[in-house]
């Protein structure tokens, strides 16, 4: 595959369509700057600032743009708040749509047939694969990303984190809890 990709890149470069130096910068951005730490900052801000949280739930793209991210956020970001009554989980059954700008590149499992096939039919079983068990009375809401809307889950703030700084709160926020296949770390897991 390496040779095949290199052949295509050479052809497209010689044709004048692409610039390999720009490609280098894109790869570097995804390797070093665009990742779930961006989303974790958004979640931590929402946990500490009720006005920001409200703005975020009303218009995710607009609210995140006020934070000055490494990668600017395009339109159509929708933030979904977990509550004791409802747990949100995001999938793209048709391809692998994912909120890249706030979570970076999707992990292999998110793009895999097991996740894409089962998340809409057996979400509790999928959560069990991640070691997550929710109370029976919690409704699970699965969001299939079938259009250009992109979803970010706002998990519930863990207990015992009163008075924590945004930076410390962000250290509780895992990638999976922003997809809905995990829960944030507990306060005692972070120092």
């Amino acid at each position, binding site marked *: 595959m390496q040779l095949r990709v290199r052949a295509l890149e050479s052809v497209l470069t010689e*044709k*004048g369509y692409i610039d390999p130096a720009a490609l280098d910068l894109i790869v570097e951005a995804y390797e070093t700057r*665009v990742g779930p730490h961006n989303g974790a900052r958004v979640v931590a801000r929402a946990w500490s600032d009720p006005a920001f949280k409200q703005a975020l739930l009303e218009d995710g793209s607009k609210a995140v743009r006020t934070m000055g991210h490494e990668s600017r956020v*395009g339109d159509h970001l929708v933030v979904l708040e977990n509550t004791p009554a409802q747990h949100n989980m995001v999938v793209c059954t*048709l391809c*692998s749509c994912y909120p890249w700008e706030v979570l970076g590149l999707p992990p292999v*499992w998110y793009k*895999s047939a097991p996740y894409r*096939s089962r998340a*809409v039919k057996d979400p509790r079983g999928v959560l069990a694969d991640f070691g997550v068990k929710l109370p029976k009375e919690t409704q699970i809401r699965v969001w299939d990303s079938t259009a250009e809307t992109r979803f970010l889950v706002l998990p519930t703030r863990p207990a015992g984190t009163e008075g924590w700084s945004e930076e410390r709160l962000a250290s509780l926020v895992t990638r999976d809890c922003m997809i809905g296949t995990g829960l944030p770390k507990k306060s005692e897991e972070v120092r």
Partner: protein
Amino acid sequence: MDGIHDMGGMDGFGKVLPEANEPPFHEAWEGRVLAMQRALGYAGAWHIDVSRAAQERLPPQVYLTSSYYQRWELAMESNVTERGLADADEIAAGHALREGKPLMRKLTPDLVQQGMTRGSFFRQAQAPARFKPGDRVRTRNIHPRTHTRLPRYARGRVGVIERQHGCHAFPDAVATDRGDDPQWLYTVVFDGRELWGADADPMVKVSIDAFEPYLDPA
């Protein structure tokens, strides 16, 4: 199209296997594929729905046995040749043998930040929205041979409009070079039992984002 990519609800693929400390790319070529796709998108070579449609047209056995970035590479090769940007003999040779075609623009290093920002899919509405939150709708039972974003498991089902997302470019039209054909977009939520039968978990709800042509009043 009713292809292998439309896998929501299929059985038999096994457990989800998360990988601890997964790197952004497992091999260097994966990053090149992703970056080429971005650069070609910026250049206006084709729209994202055209890229999705090309992946969906891969033979099912190829689709299932190729990794995510392998599928991107294969789809990119198809689009490059089908759209006359390069010929198969050039890709086989690994060199351009003929002049390139003019594209809209080119992603250069100084434009990368801009090129990595997603474009907006909002478009000017051609008609007022037909539905509002709270309306009951039935998804259409359609089986186009071309690209669509209405998954099979959610066709012919009754749900409720929960949100309206504005008017967007319509992928079914964009993927077949019929322009943006702007359509209203809604989140439609279904009870799990409506999708998976009476035995399904009563505490599950599933939503899709559906374009107005996918919906009828119910």
